[in-house]
């Protein structure tokens, strides 16, 4: 039997999978009909019972989040879907929405019913035009079919290039028409979110997982996954592997198992380091191949499951260069609000550049680690924390490689060797 369990991805191979016809043909919009006939609290309970946890990175139980919305408060409630997929390595929501936007819409309908919201927003990153097209068309078709517009409205809001807007309160500020900078908490979005009203912010995959849970029941979902990490999820494998792609499997699968399915690391090469859930999750090495990729397993090994973005790097990759590039990303995406992240990433980049080009010193490593200590847990939001992850974890596992840059006064790696067209010769 396959280790893979395609549910979200079950019909992606149908050429018209993104249309309302295909979605309906495959049983779509039956779950929302079922949910709408249920008491909203029963829907919340069902989602709680399923054990579904947030797929955006933090893994917070989805049903519990919904349960935080105060009921009977005579205020508007809002559902906001976070489709601002921007964490380096993360590439699951984008293909999901391109292939099947309707499952998200149906999930929104169910979630709105559960939290007594009449209005949902999908905040999608702006750099994926065709996905915007597909989702926009799907929303139009769902209105025409009467799934939307009868008590529940859905607005697609397109971002404009800012990683920080994946942080839920920055997303809300951005959606309200401000600069996307994180808000002070409390108040939490469940109490004062969008327009200061009770708001649930969920990741695309979390909401898209709901229709199947409603259709098949909590027990069905509970059968998959591990003790505290229930259900199946999308693992995105990329990098130096023979066959990258999306793998929908129960939580708890290992990288070794996924790599086997993917035909292994690039032929002739071996695994050097990888991220379990995007660049903000501390790096793993080949010593971590058998860690259960669920919330607890990854965490126990010193990283985070995050977005399950498995970026694979083989031995041709210079870890200092990789980390520098990620750090440049955090510097570019720092919103500027708080000192540690804004100034810290600015400084980190300079030290790493020196180290990478061979003009750094061994003391720079201590300085880097101390700087990370001054940023981690000191910045306003998790972006600053995330910026330190690749640095501290890479120094932990590859200190010698950093030193080699210092002693050799330069990078010992050939960047061409790590390109996918290295064999054919880079032109």
């Amino acid at each position, binding site marked *: 039997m*396959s*280790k*893979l369990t395609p549910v979200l*991805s079950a019909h*992606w*191979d*149908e*050429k*018209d*999978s993104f*249309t309302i016809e295909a979605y309906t043909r495959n049983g779509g919009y039956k779950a929302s009909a079922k949910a709408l006939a249920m008491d909203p609290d029963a829907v919340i309970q069902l989602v709680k019972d399923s054990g579904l946890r947030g797929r955006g990175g933090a893994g917070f139980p989805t049903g519990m989040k919904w349960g935080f919305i105060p009921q009977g408060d005579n205020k*508007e409630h809002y559902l906001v879907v976070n489709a601002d*997929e*921007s964490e*380096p*390595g*993360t*590439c699951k929501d984008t*293909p999901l929405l*391109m*292939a099947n936007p309707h499952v998200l819409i149906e999930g929104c309908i169910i979630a709105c019913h559960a939290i007594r919201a009449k209005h949902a927003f999908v905040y999608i990153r*702006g*750099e994926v*035009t*065709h996905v*915007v097209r597909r989702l*926009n*068309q799907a929303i139009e078709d769902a209105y025409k079919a009467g799934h939307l517009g009868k008590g529940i409205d859905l*607005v*697609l*809001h*397109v*971002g*404009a*290039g800012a990683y920080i807007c994946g942080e839920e309160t920055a997303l809300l500020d951005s959606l*309200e*028409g401000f*600069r996307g900078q994180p808000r002070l908490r409390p108040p939490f979005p469940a109490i004062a979110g969008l*327009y200061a009203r009770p708001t649930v912010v969920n990741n695309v995959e979390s909401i898209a997982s709901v229709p199947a849970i409603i259709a098949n029941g909590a027990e069905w979902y509970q059968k998959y996954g591990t003790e505290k990490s229930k259900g199946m999820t999308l*693992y*995105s494998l*990329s*990098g130096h592997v023979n*066959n*990258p*792609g*999306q*793998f*929908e499997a129960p939580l708890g699968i290992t990288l070794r198992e996924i790599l086997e*399915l993917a035909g292994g690391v690039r032929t002739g090469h071996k695994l050097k380091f990888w991220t379990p859930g995007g*660049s903000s999750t501390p790096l793993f090495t080949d010593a971590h191949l058998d860690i259960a990729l669920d919330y607890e397993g990854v965490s126990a090994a010193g990283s985070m499951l995050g977005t399950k973005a498995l970026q694979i790097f083989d031995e041709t990759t210079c870890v200092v260069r990789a980390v520098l*590039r990620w750090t440049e*990303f955090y510097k570019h995406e720092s*919103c500027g609000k708080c000192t540690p992240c804004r100034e810290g990433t600015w400084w980190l980049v300079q030290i790493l550049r020196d180290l990478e080009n061979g003009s750094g010193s061994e003391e720079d490593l201590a300085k880097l680690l101390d700087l990370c200590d001054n940023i981690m847990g000191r910045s306003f939001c998790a972006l600053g924390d995330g910026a330190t992850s690749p640095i501290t974890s890479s120094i932990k596992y590859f200190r010698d490689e950093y030193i080699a840059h210092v002693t050799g006064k330069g990078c010992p790696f050939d*960047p061409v060797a790590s*390109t*996918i*067209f290295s064999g054919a010769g*880079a*032109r």
Partner: protein
Amino acid sequence: MFSDQDLAVMDSIIKRYPRSRSAIMPLLHYVQSKAGYVTNEGIELIAKLLTLETAEVSAVATFYTQYKRKPVGEYHVGVCTNTLCAVMGGDAIFAGLKNHLGIENDGVTADGKVSLEHIECNAACDYAPVVMANWEFYDNQSVESAKDLVDSMRQGNPIPPTRGPKSLPTWKENSAVLAGINDGRANEGVQAGEPTLLGLKLAKEGK
């Protein structure tokens, strides 16, 4: 610059939201669809439509990298140079394109056809190295394929995206899509590329 019809569209964008200020981002995309970039006229118009101060609009416009305060090319090319793409060839592609086009990061070719930017992770890592043009996907690129792409743009007949519409829309046309305007092309192109379908295929094969 903005006709009565444009103003009617902008009004409909504002009406999407319970509070008008939320419309600032789609309106900025819309301004780019008309003017090519965020012009002062656009900022002043949005401020007027939303009863904001112009400073409040420019504060938002300058926060997001997709809003340009100077003209870009008809085809805006973004090369992903975040770690994974960079390592797998993105750096070589970006260097190759700079050299080929004779422009630097954020530069525009003299004919106004192509502009170049190095971009961050665009959520297509299983298709690395990735190049975006007007924010459409060009998957699994090489230095050579990227050069062919920009050449085709300069010849006025751009190679179509890998996963996207049948032909590459212009920067302005796609800015309108980002403003939430349906261009009727959602059904064009594939539903998914091979890597997206890999797990499903393996599962069906019982692997």
